[in-house]
């Protein structure tokens, strides 16, 4: 009976090919899958040596996915207004079943992601995987690093407790000193930059950290920065694929 089911149109539209262990099927399974087709169908031998890269890039991506999923769960319980932000966080910690678990997973994943990003960066540098033709991918990676740090920074404000507000105050105060765009930066005042119209103002949505800042950071943290990060990650992975796949030791030159 199972055989008959396998012959129906419904089954065939979902599972496009059979699963006999042929080379063709093996290739099709990767190529036909939207999630897997970024992986190469075949990998070079050195790719299986996990000790070369320790999969730091992949782990970073895994943590990003964890953050996204736990983040979405957290979004169910959080309102980004000054009136509710702290209370919702407390509610999550005290009332919601497994609330502390989700919040702590999100926080640990965030810290771990920053750590693995650093490790990945060191690994790439130490294995020379930035050399031509991979220079542009390094730049994209740096952008991704900046985005990771911005995600961390914007997320830090969301509990809206004293630690959050003051940390962000200190961080955003640096924006005052931006050249040309900050009201205390070089050439800023000359260009008409005031505390209420410079880049810090844009960042905070006001002259000091307040409810507009919270909303701005929330939107940035949940929508804007993740989308930009996703775009750059797509570029980053695509470039890795196209530039020859996962790093490996130098192949000995044939004499």
């Amino acid at each position, binding site marked *: 009976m199972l055989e008959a089911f396998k012959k129906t149109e419904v089954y065939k539209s979902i599972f496009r090919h059979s699963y006999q262990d042929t080379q063709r099927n093996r290739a099709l399974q990767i190529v036909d899958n939207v999630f897997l087709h970024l992986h190469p169908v075949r990998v070079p*031998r*050195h790719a*299986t*040596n996990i000790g070369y890269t320790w999969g730091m890039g992949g782990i970073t991506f895994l943590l990003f996915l964890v953050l996204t999923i736990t983040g979405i769960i957290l979004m169910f319980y959080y309102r980004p207004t*000054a*009136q509710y932000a*702290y*209370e919702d966080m*407390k*509610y999550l*910690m*005290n*009332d919601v*079943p*497994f609330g*502390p*678990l989700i919040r702590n997973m999100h926080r640990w994943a965030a810290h771990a992601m920053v750590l693995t990003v650093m490790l990945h960066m060191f690994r790439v540098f130490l294995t020379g995987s930035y050399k031509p033709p991979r220079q542009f991918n390094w730049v994209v990676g740096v952008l991704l690093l900046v985005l990771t740090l911005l995600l961390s920074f914007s997320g830090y404000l969301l509990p809206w*407790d*004293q*630690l959050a507000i003051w940390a962000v105050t200190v961080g955003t105060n640096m924006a005052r000193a931006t050249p040309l765009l900050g009201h205390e930066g070089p050439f800023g005042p000359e260009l008409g930059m005031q505390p209420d119209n410079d880049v810090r103002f844009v960042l905070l949505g006001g002259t000091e950290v*307040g*409810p507009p800042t919270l909303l701005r950071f929330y939107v940035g943290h949940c929508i804007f920065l993740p989308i930009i990060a996703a775009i750059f990650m797509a570029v980053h992975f695509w470039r890795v694929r196209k530039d020859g796949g996962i790093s490996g030791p130098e192949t000995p030159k044939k004499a």
Partner: protein
Amino acid sequence: MFERRAKIPVENRDYAVFYIVFSGILFVGTVWSVWDEVRTRRPWKDYQAEFYQLSSEKLDSLRLASLQEVDSTQVLELQAILKKAEESLTSEEYRKAVADKDQLSRDLDIATREWRFARSRSDAAYYQFQKAKLEGRDVAPYRKEVDEHEASIAKHFAEKNHLEMKISGLDEVINKYKDAHAKAQVELQNVFAQAVAFGAKAENMRNNPVTVRQVMLNDFELTPFQEIKARIDRCQTCHSGWNDELMAEAPQPHTQHPVPELLAKHNPESFGCTPCHRGQGPALTEGFAHGVDDHYWETPILRGNDVYATCNSCHTNESTLKHAKPFVAAKQIIFESGCYGCHEIKGFTDLPKIGPPLNTLMAKTQPEWIFPWVRNPKDYNPHTRMPNFKFSDGEAEAITAYLVSVAKQSSFSFERPRGSFAGGNAAQGRQIFETIGCQGCHAVGNATTVRDARGTTFDIAPELTRVGSKVSPDWLFDWVKNPRHYNNETRMPSLRLTDTEARHIVAYLMSLKDNRRFAPASLDLSNPEKITAGDRLIREFGCAGCHSIKGMENEGKVSVELSDFGRKKYEQMDFGDTHELSEDDTVDYRENADGTVSVKHSWRGWVYGKFKNPRQYQTERIVQKMPVYTFNDDEVKLIRLFLISMTKDVPLPTYQRTYDKRMQDIEAGRRLTMTYNCIQCHQLEDRGGYILPLYQEAALGPPPLPESQGAKVQEPWLHSFLKNPTTIRSWINVRMPTFNLTDAEIGKIQRYFLGLSRQDFVIRDYAATPMDQKYVEPGRKLYEIYQCAKCHPTGSNTEGLTAEFLAPDLAKAYTRLKPEWIIDWMRDPSRLQPGTRMPTFFTEGQEAPDPSILGGNNEEQIKALSTYVWILGRRSAPVVTK
């Protein structure tokens, strides 16, 4: 370990072990996180289970105890009665009655049915009759039929009635047995009722669900961003036994909350717990709920006496709180120590300066006294309120020079010529001093009874042990005769001394000299540089906050505002050179053997250290201006308690106490009585009366309770009394002094007393109070029979009676007392003034002592006596109605 692995080609390496190990770790981690979430992080489930168990055990033991007390002879009796009643239900009579009733009931049914049928038939016949009548036919046969049916109805009705009567007769018999049986059952059950109730409660306890319990207070307070926020308290989830009397002795968290009268006014079900105790309401674990583990929680739980600090958040500016005695004591210390002279404190803004004016010092004393005083006040008077500024000799000299220069410009002169003080006898002066009440405020030498009764380390009036070396006798004479002449804001009242008495007192006080030897200081007082330096120092250290000084009337407060000090972060406090105590240490402050001091780095630690020695945190480069007070440990803790209450974080007005006019009057009166220190002698609202141990001649009793004065005395009389006190009880030597109160102040006091007695301030013509003629003669007779004159002398008729027997002159009653109060007093004196020597003559429910007058009716006799007292002593005829 990995060499063997390195030999295998990289693509063939097996990762199974790693996968299994890490999967296992992940699995264990997941199981742990679920367990942690459901049980470990929810300790309240265990606490509640424990509570239910404790409670049900207690109830079980109460049930057993109740069963123990059951009188088994009674039980046996009742059981016998029940058995008999049960047996009677099987008796012939009963059975027959039941059977008969059954039969008769059936018969009744039939009879009723027949009756009804007859009625229907009659209706039908009547219709036919009417129809025939209408149709003009012969009605006679129809009428006959109708009549027949009517007869039938009557017959069946009678039968029915008869049966019903018989049935009710049987019912009586049946019910007799049944009621007896039911009664016996109920009585037997009642014997065990209490035990059964306990058992039911115990069973309830065992079956109670384990659940989170919370109280929500909507719109309670504002967030720092001025948004309205609710408060949610879940304290009851762990503290389930807070309202259970059985849990009074149980261990925490099950202990019953103490002071149930206070809880009745602040019911936690509608008030929550954190408004008083602070802590983190929504949290459900101990460390987080108490705000201790959550390091960023700004309001952790208040322990011990500190819990009284939060009373101030809603009861702002109330000086007397019945259930918050520590806080009241703390407020009193602040009030009396004059902290508001240098610090702006909410609720302490319109208060007079606590120190005397310094504009005319040379009339009172001399620079040789001023200089050591400024250098260290405690040297002269260890219990003075003035703190020690630790001036250097040069600084003290400069200040003295300035004060002397100011004094030289004054034109003060004494009321009487110089030398008027002479001729007094020191021994007599001492006797007067010790009897008329001076010791109520001033201590001398070892006579510290009043100070001990007060219990503070400072006195509110100067100790006079060495006053002879301080003041000039001319000044002293001028002062004791009329204190307001020298200082028109002084709170020292006049004791209405005659010249002779004043001279004796001056002689006595001038004999109290400072016998210590001092090296005389050479002071350069006319040096203009010194005078300028003194001016600067006085302004810098804020002396004008406590003393009136000419030219410095507009000086501001010299130190920081304290209205929000309770919320100051300890990270912003300077601990100077003190060592740090670790967080786990049990004390906040320790004086080490090597003379250094260790302070815990927390708000409580800093504040404690600060008040132990206000210059504690001074370093080489950071100088502190706060002068040194010498509070004892208890006072330091009370001041700290007060500062905890200084916070701007208060509930919204809907939760705050509202004060109606009466409460406002009472509060104004309290403040006035605190300013004039009435509580030193009188007991007011459970405080004060410190003079009592001194003049406790056993039978004398305490000074009158001012609280009762509102209901007791006539307002015009009180007004004139407070303006010029007269002697009511001539056998007592202690005098009520003349306080020189303004009319406004007297009005405040009046409204205070009236407010306490819940009466309004109305203008009445007391002289026109009507009195019933018929009571006059019986009243006179009763006055004689009850021998009122034995204790109440009229006029000066005090022969043979000593002080212990005497009572006020009743001839003055009609000018002083309110007529309705006289009646209340006669009904039950010890209710109006507990401990009074006036006996109760009339007991409710019993006949009056003399049954022959007015029929022995208590109320009538009371009215008669009151009427007689009211007209006693009048020269003009009172208004007497028929």
